[in-house]
């Protein structure tokens, strides 16, 4: 059994009298320690996959297994615990608490975890050892995203979910962030799921899943993932 398994997952939104099928019968799997790139155009359904995988939303039908646990069967409370202990989330717009310093933002997440990493160390790890006492508004976009990654990592999650982590960043910074994610996965064996519309970065993933109109159109394992530095777009 794979570490992550999506089996025949369907998600239907009811909007008035119209049913919108965000996901129709999606199935894929991923292994522990892999970098999974889920790619697709806007509205293809990749965010829905992420939401369901991250426990922020539930599927209409199908089974989702993460590390042997059935996420689709979780109730509100276990979902919260699932998010709390198993998932690290990196947002497109960082979503830092403006009122807390970089370090505090990390600590915010750490405080509610069972077996967290040391926040300051994590900050060091993401290269913000110097600026960890700054408030988010005092940091650049890339730095803020690093804080966000640190916040996710410090929780020591099973899964790192990244939603367009470079979407709000310039090319160079974006690359740096991706590099950080790649390194994290490589050095810590962290399973990282990256959602992106940028097909150009797919070569960095161990597994590439392409979604179009709520269906998986490609699910392949990249036997030779490239270092992010070698990827240009």
């Amino acid at each position: 059994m794979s570490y992550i398994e999506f089996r025949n997952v369907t998600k239907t939104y009811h909007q008035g009298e119209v049913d919108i099928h965000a996901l129709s019968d999606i199935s894929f799997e991923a292994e522990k320690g892999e970098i999974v790139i889920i790619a697709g155009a806007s509205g293809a359904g990749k965010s829905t996959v992420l939401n369901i995988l991250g426990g922020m939303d539930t599927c209409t039908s199908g089974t989702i297994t993460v590390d042997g646990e059935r996420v689709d069967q979780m109730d509100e409370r276990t979902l919260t615990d699932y998010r709390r202990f198993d998932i690290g989330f990196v947002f497109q717009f960082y979503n830092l608490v403006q009122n807390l310093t970089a370090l505090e933002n990390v600590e915010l997440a750490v405080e509610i975890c069972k077996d967290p990493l040391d926040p300051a160390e994590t900050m060091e790890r993401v290269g913000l050892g110097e600026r960890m006492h700054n408030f988010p508004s005092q940091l650049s976009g890339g730095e803020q995203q690093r804080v966000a990654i640190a916040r996710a990592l410090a929780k020591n999650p099973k899964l790192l979910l990244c939603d367009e982590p470079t979407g709000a960043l310039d090319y160079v910074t974006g690359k740096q962030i991706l590099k950080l994610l790649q390194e994290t996965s490589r050095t810590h064996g962290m399973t990282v799921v990256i959602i992106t519309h940028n097909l150009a970065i797919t070569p960095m993933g161990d597994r590439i899943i392409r979604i179009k109109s709520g269906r998986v159109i490609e699910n392949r394992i990249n036997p030779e993932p490239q270092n992010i530095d070698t990827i240009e777009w």
Partner: protein
Amino acid sequence: MNRTLIKSLIRLIRTSLSRFLAVFAIVTIGVAFFTGVAGTADIMSVSVDRYSDETNLKDITVYSNYGFDDDDVKAVEDIEEVKKAQGAKFTDVIGIHENDSWVTRIHSLPEEDSINNFVLVSGRYPENEHEALAENGSELEPGFTLGERIDVILPDGSKNEDIVSDYFIITGTVDTPLYLNEIKENSTLSNQYIRTYLYVNEDVFTTDYYTELNVLSKNGKPYNSFTKPYETYSKELKETIKTLALTQADARRNKIRDDALAEYEKGIQEYRDGEEEYRNGIREAEEEIADGEKQISDGEAEIAEGAKQLEEAENELNRQVADAQKQLADAASLLADNSRTLAQKKAEFEAQKKDLLKTVSDLQNAISQLKEAKDGLRQIDEGLVQIDEGLSELNDPKTALLIDLLRQADPEMTLDDLKQLAGSLNDLASEIRERFPETEEITAEQINDLIHELESQFDTDSALLNSEETVLLIESLSQLDPDTPLSEAEGTQELTALLTKWNPLQSFETVSDLLTAYENTQSLFDRLNDLKQTDAYVRVREIIDSLDPAKPITEIFSFDIEGMDETVRKLEENTGTKINTVGDLLNSYDELKETLEKTKKELLDTRKSITDDLNEQGVREDGIDAKIKELEDLIRTIQNGLAEGEKALTDGEAQLNDGWAQLAKGQRDLDILSADGRAQIAEGQRKLIDSQNQINDAIKKLEEGRKELADARKEGADKLADAKAKLDEAKEQIDSLEHGTWTVLDRASHYASATYHQTVDQMRAIGNVFPLFFILVAALVCLTTMTRMVSEQRGETGVLRALGYSKLQCASKYLIYALSATLLGCIAGSVIGMHTFPPIIYHVWRMMYILPDIVLTPPWKLIIIATLSFMAAMGAVTWTVLRSDMQEVPAQLLRPKAAKSGRSALIERIGFVWKKLSFTWKVTMRNIFRYRRRFIMTILGVAGCGALMVTGFGIRDSINDMVDLQFFDILRFDGSASLNDEASEEEIASLRTKLLKRDDVSSVTDVYAYSALASDNEQSGLDETVSVQIFNEPEEIEKAYDLRTRTGHEKIALNDDGIVISEKLAENLSLKKGDTFLMEDEKGSRKSVKIADICEMYIQHQAFMTKAYYESLTGESPSKRALFITGSEEYEDLKDLQADLMEEELVSGISFYDETLNNFSTMVKSLDLIVWTLIISSMALAFVVLGNLIHINVAERQREIATLKVLGFRRKEVQSYIFKENNILTILGSLAGLPLGNLLHHYIMGCIEMDYVMFGRNVSLMSFVISAALTIGFGMLVNLAMVRTLDSIKMVESLKSVE
């Protein structure tokens, strides 16, 4: 603005309705408070102003040292601006009813529809001089009650001479704007407050001038009399009247002076007349004395004469009496003689009477014998007559004939046979009579002859008739025509003659007649033949033959059968034997006849013997009656004689008795006459003595008269001199008569209007506190709301600007949004405010004022002010928010606004604290300090809520405190009984003992108590009325009061060096411990007293001192005694005690606190209304402020919350993360609200506190705790309401881009 913008505005309002409502609500609350509380002042003033207008309350009152007359009234009324002027009368008295003795002003009833009218609340108008209308008053302090009798006196107990009545019955109660207060202005009685008033008919007043002159202005009514314009207007009028006063004030004075001068002249005249009179009087008196002397000497002479006459009269009387006595004695002896004679005569008479009576009885016997004889004779004669009758009957010819006839008959023949025979005879007789009518008087002999003749004739004729020739003739005749006349028939003459003989009645004309007669005759002859053959005929023949030949035939031939029957009947009757036969008849007849004759003989014999007897007595038969009459006459004579004798005797006795009676009467008369005479003589003597006494008196009087005259002479002279002096003095007074002055007062000097004016101003002051505070909170609410709104709409604004809309157009959307919410809030607030606060507050003031019904006129001015200020504030705030956005270029606007950077709070510098805080705490802290507007808004809002609540509860506390502290802590006695001034020590002591013996009395304290006026040393401002209580010993106060300081409750002891006064008095007079002030003693003179201490006391001004201190102040002992009585705990009420105390003669009045306590309890209850209003208001405030805050907080931090959720924060953790901030602010706010509330409470209590009452000054700890707890509770409640909003935030929000 174009249509799309308006559409977008409307849509904006609809989507953000809660924000819109928040702004609307806070404005509503603010405006409601402002218009409500501040508007109350206006509504209060308008209500009373309208009341005053409706009842024509005077604008100006004028007083004068000479009063007013109608000319004065007319002069004032002639002033241009005066609509009406009216004189009125009043006087001040003490009104007494049961325990109450109240200073009472008695007003004359105003004319209908004139100035100072009133509202008749109950009852009817007075109809006579003993009826009055009384004050209706308030619940706490009512006036006299309907139906009560009020005795009115002056303070010294004398009658008020200004009015005719000394008591009034209350027939109705009234309300008047003239008196709005429970405590009223000063009276004219030694500076005491008027407690109540009465209205009476004007004719109750004896005064002929008006005491006051009331003026109603022409144009005053349109103004509100509690405003400046009115004051200006009335001041002008006041000045005009003052100008008039310069001239008019003396008019009445001059009139009075003229009158006085006239009076003086009259006095002088009277003086002269008096002098004249004096002289005449003296002269007359002297004459009278001379007269008196003469009368006395005359009188003495008369007395001497009288005495002499009296003596003569006495002698005469004695003589007369003696004569009369002698006459009476003679008469008595004569009477005695007569009496004896009479007795003798009587005895003689009785003897005679006896004999005479015997004679009479003999005579009566004789008479009865005679009568018997007479009766016997009469009976015998009657018997004889009857017998004779019977005999004559028997012998009467007819009967005799009958008997004779019968004797010849066969005795064996029955009577029936006889009757038959008689019938035949009678028939025969009648036949004969028919035949021989002329033979009436023929005798039997003749008859006999006749019969013989007839028989022979018959024999002849029958032979002839039956002869052949006749037969032949008849045969031949019968051959003839019957009608042939006889004359024509031959040979018929003989026959005709024969037949005519036998048929005398028949005419013989024709043959037929003849034949007929023949036939008849033939048959007659046949019958006669037959008859002749019968026995009867034979016997008749025999009878006839035997008859007396001389007898007439009629007698013989009328055998009377009926007569025989009669005879038979009689015989049967008389003999008793049945008569069947003729023999019987004859026997009976004979027997009867014999008997009768025998009887007759006997009777005759008897008669003979009787007549013989009579003859023996010398009486003839026909003289019996005469003899009887003679005897009866004799008896009558004897009886008459006896009666006369008896009468003579009785008359004699009667005369004798009469004589005795007359004698007695004579004696009595004589006695009376003699007594009368003596009495008259005595009377005469007494009269003489009286006359002597009178003369003596007259002499004495004359002496006195002489003395009096001397006195009067002197007195008269003195009086004249006095009068002269007085007249001179009067003249002097008239010459120095002071000028008239008018005091013109407008309503600023009218106690009721002026004090109410103050109250209205106080209310206005309270009303001014709230709006500022609410505008601030509202502005903050608006600020946060609009800031959020504008920043949310930033993109849209950018687009609009980019599309070319002007700044103003863009801004107007938000301005209109804010201002429309504000405007709606203003409208709603005005309506709500006007209908909640004024009625409630007015109601509370009604406990202290006697107010008309509320008039809810919208306070437009305030509404406009409130609306404008709120609009301005909200507009300004919104503009401020918009300004920064509007200054940016569209491109900037389209980009998201840089998030507000996090900042480290001050608290972070305190490392050891900071480090210990959890993240949520840190975030909370940072947030609190980061959003300062919200911080202030929340603190202010919540503090305001808490403050309102503290105020509400505080007001309750204050009044409860006042009641509880005053009645349960400080006052230790239940009531007092004031005692008569004359009460002696012993009486008081015995009353005390009596009271102490009662079960419902636990202690009695003997004190002195009176009421005094007090002022500061300068006597500035109003006097305060103080209840002064003097204790014999300092420690005795312990039984009546717990004297202590309000703060700290330190015990205060009385000492002999000063007075302890109540706090409110000290406050009103600005006094402190150790100061001195002026206070009246019992006699009313002001003494400077030293304040030893100031004590806690809530109701009335009180002053306490020892007897020693009082004595040291005045040099006298106090005299007004009272007993302070404490009831037993076990007794619910002391009604019995009160009733019994009233009965005590020593007790002049009682006052117990139970009633007051009830009144205050009612008052506290109605204050609950205010408390609830404040609590509800504060709740609304808390909801709006906190709700808005949380709402905005959540809206602004949606992303953050979503992120937290994504990070795995649980529901509670998210809630606490967000609400912690609110909770801290709520707690901070409510804590801040406590001192604020305390301040507000003090301010409000200061504004509403009454002159003589001190409310509790402190808000209780409990009220603070409750207020804080409630405020925090509201906060929590709002949090709870927001939980749903929090839950509804979706995690997906976190993924969205920053707007």
